[in-house]
């Protein structure tokens, strides 16, 4: 085990790691500046379990109904050897081959306790033989397993489908249950889907590059399959993911400074929940909050949409009076000032502004005078 892994294992403690997946990588891009999250995710800490143990609301709990709906839609698209999917991809990618091969990797290694490496090996050999043209190419790989290096770690990623055009390029296909209505989808969901697809593109590029095959053979346009309008009939849309792929790979580059972040932690820092015999966590809350306090958060109200720790970080940010807890507008309006207490002390003249705070202080004092005029019924 390399020293980095050992450090991360110690940080996580006795629980098995919660590996990164495309969703958590996508969430990282939503708040790339947060060291706390970068560390916890790299160590595979179960943030949901942590939040639950600390008695916090769980913002990211998933809805059974949403999961059922997603599964039903995916089933509809991939059932009967992917008949529906093949029809859609023929149209979108102009696949001309009359016979389209369909390979479901889901069943590979299903009786093994850890099927991911097996499924990955299977995926890898299928993709390589398709790329090298050594065998009749499998045109569709359902539930393949790819591997991406994240902060020196190998993480397994599971795209919905990889499609291969004969003598052509690979395409990542994502099957998503949110509707496209008159050509438009919910923008938050769309962004998340494309970011996840970007992670899969990077993983597939890594696979090809490892074999000295040109990574450009993975298309940076991804295919989203969604329900059309108010029906449950699927449509496929080719979406340009180039920007997302770029920003995700930049973010992964940043994660390489993980050792630096780890070194800054006090020795012995761990998020171990110390599960008792019946598996319930026994770790005193104070120790966990001390460990959290050793990591640097970057809280914004938007955290609630993508991070299990949002409620913890929010109360921390509120207690510290961090301006960002009040939203990006307040944070930007008081750029260069960290807390509301400082901003108000500067406004009320209890503090003297430093040189780079002079302009904003003047503006805040003016705003204060304007409000005083208003309350006095002047002007």
């Amino acid at each position, binding site marked *: 085990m390399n020293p980095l892994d050992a450090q991360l294992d110690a940080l996580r403690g006795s629980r098995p790691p919660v590996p990164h997946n495309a969703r958590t990588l996508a969430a990282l891009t939503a708040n790339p500046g947060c060291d706390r999250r970068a560390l916890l995710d790299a160590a595979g800490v179960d943030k949901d379990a942590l939040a639950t143990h600390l008695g916090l609301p769980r913002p990211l709990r998933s*809805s*059974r*109904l949403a999961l059922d709906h997603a599964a039903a839609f995916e089933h509809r698209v991939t059932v009967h050897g992917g008949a529906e999917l093949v029809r859609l991809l023929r149209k979108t990618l102009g696949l001309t081959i009359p016979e389209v091969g369909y390979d479901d990797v889901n069943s590979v290694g299903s009786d093994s306790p850890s099927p991911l490496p097996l499924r990955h090996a299977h995926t890898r050999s299928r993709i390589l033989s398709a790329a090298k043209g050594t065998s009749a190419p499998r045109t569709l790989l359902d539930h393949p397993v790819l591997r991406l290096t994240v902060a020196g770690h190998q993480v397994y990623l599971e795209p919905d489908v990889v499609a291969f055009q004969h003598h052509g390029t690979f395409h990542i296909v994502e099957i998503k249950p949110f*509707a496209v209505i008159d050509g438009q989808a919910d923008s938050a969901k769309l962004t998340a889907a494309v970011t996840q697809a970007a992670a899969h593109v990077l993983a597939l590029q890594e696979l090809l590059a490892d074999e000295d095959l040109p990574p450009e053979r993975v298309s940076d346009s991804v295919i989203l399959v969604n329900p059309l309008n108010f*029906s449950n009939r699927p449509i496929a849309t080719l979406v340009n993911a180039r920007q997302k792929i770029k920003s995700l790979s930049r973010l992964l580059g940043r994660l390489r400074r993980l050792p630096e972040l780890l070194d800054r932690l006090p020795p012995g820092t761990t998020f171990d929940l110390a599960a008792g015999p019946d598996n319930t966590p026994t770790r005193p809350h104070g120790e966990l909050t001390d460990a959290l306090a050793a990591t640097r958060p970057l809280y914004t*109200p938007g955290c609630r949409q993508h991070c299990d720790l949002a409620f913890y970080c929010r109360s921390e940010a509120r207690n510290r009076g961090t301006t960002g807890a009040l939203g990006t507008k*307040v944070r930007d309006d008081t750029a260069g000032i960290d807390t509301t207490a400082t*901003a108000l002390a500067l406004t009320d003249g209890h503090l003297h502004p430093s040189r780079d705070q002079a302009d904003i202080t003047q503006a*805040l004092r*003016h705003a204060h005078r304007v409000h005083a005029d208003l309350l006095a019924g002047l002007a």
Partner: protein
Amino acid sequence: MSLLASLLRMRAATTGNAVPTSQLRHLHLSDRPLMMLPLEQTGPAARPLAVMLGTDPRHPQLLVAPPSGSTAPMLGALAATVTAYIDEHQQRSEQIPAGTNRPARRRYTDAPQILVPNPKTVAYLDRLGRDLRFRPADTDIPAQHGVPRLGQWLTHFADRAEIPGSCALVPLTGFLTMHWITGQSPLEDEDLALLLAWIDPPRDAASGRDAALAAEHPDTHRPAGPATDARFDTEQLAPLFEQYARTTAQPRALQDLERLLAHYLQPTWDLMWQAYTLLHALPEADSTARRWNKERSVFTDFSTYLIQDGRPQAARDQAVSAAVGLARREEATAAFDAERAMDDPFARAELRTAGRAFAGTVTTVDADRCVRPKARRQWRPMLTVSTTDPVSMEPGQLLACHAHRNARYKICDIAPGSATTQVQLEITAGMGPESRPNYNVLPDPGDLLTFTAAPDHYRLPEFPPRNQTPWTHGGPPAEHPDHEGEER
């Protein structure tokens, strides 16, 4: 949002209590609004789960859709209620004399107003309207005749909600935040329960902040829709849905579902009326009535359109209709901003912190000044205003002033001093005709006035006449046959 708003948000966060901002209501509030609280089923696009609605706070109507199968009976009932409410407002009309660009016409004396909890519900009604307006009218079942028409009305209301200053369909969170600033983030303000906890905390709460923390408790907090929360889905709805799927237990499951949803929605329903009461207590701004007239005209026009043409609004904004929509929105924004600046001291205060206005004392008035740019002498009084506000505007800028709405002032000179800035202004409009000069426009030395940047003269660009734009050519595009073979 202005710097003033940011400052007040920080103050509220520090004291734990919301800060009142504008104390004048800029949107008309009906005496009989239709409160509407819809829930969307998690999963299928726009499929309704339930709607609580009505005009009487004590007797809401609850409509519940079955977990699977046809929603048409429920939507038929919804259409009946909404249509009856709209009909009430089409009973009386008044004669409007011809104006400069419109012939004489009739206008309904009242108009419907739908209040919903939050902006997401507005977006949901838009989607639902998009779904329903293209449904084929089911001629066999009279109770469902109104469904496509309901879709047209919902689309109309959702379109109006995009126009600043329109009060046809208003999200209550947005309405409340026009008048109060809380110590939480704008994102959290979109939660009606949290917002109201800050603004109007229960009497036993120590502060708005404490009330908001209590209101957030997962055991009692109800999101105001249209989405249900994951815990409710998993723990309450999913088992009932399963029960429903076992055909023998359907009626029981539906009854249980109704009871469950009534219980789930009731707290938010009460909050919506609490919000209404707070807003109703605010006095109307001067221009609110004028905007209400406009709203009634729009309502009358759309009612006429439905009778005379009645094709559903187009599925997607086409180039021309998108441009028309954008231009209308810009025009409405400019007009709304300008009117608020004239009506409301808080709006002016915000503009001062944004560098779009300054306030000061009139120091000198040259009442007799005349200029002679052409053959005729023109009366152009001058005044000097001394202000401590930073003046970031340039000479030549045209200003308006709340004291004389029709007057315009041109900045001639700005002379910054150590503590105050002297601004020289020429009055360029509002002096009346030469024969009957309006001396009222002249301020007195010592008057305290706020000057705001005058609204740009906004002219709606020319578009092809309405009957020649694709806007009226409704109907789903040929490649989108929505409802054929649909399984829902």
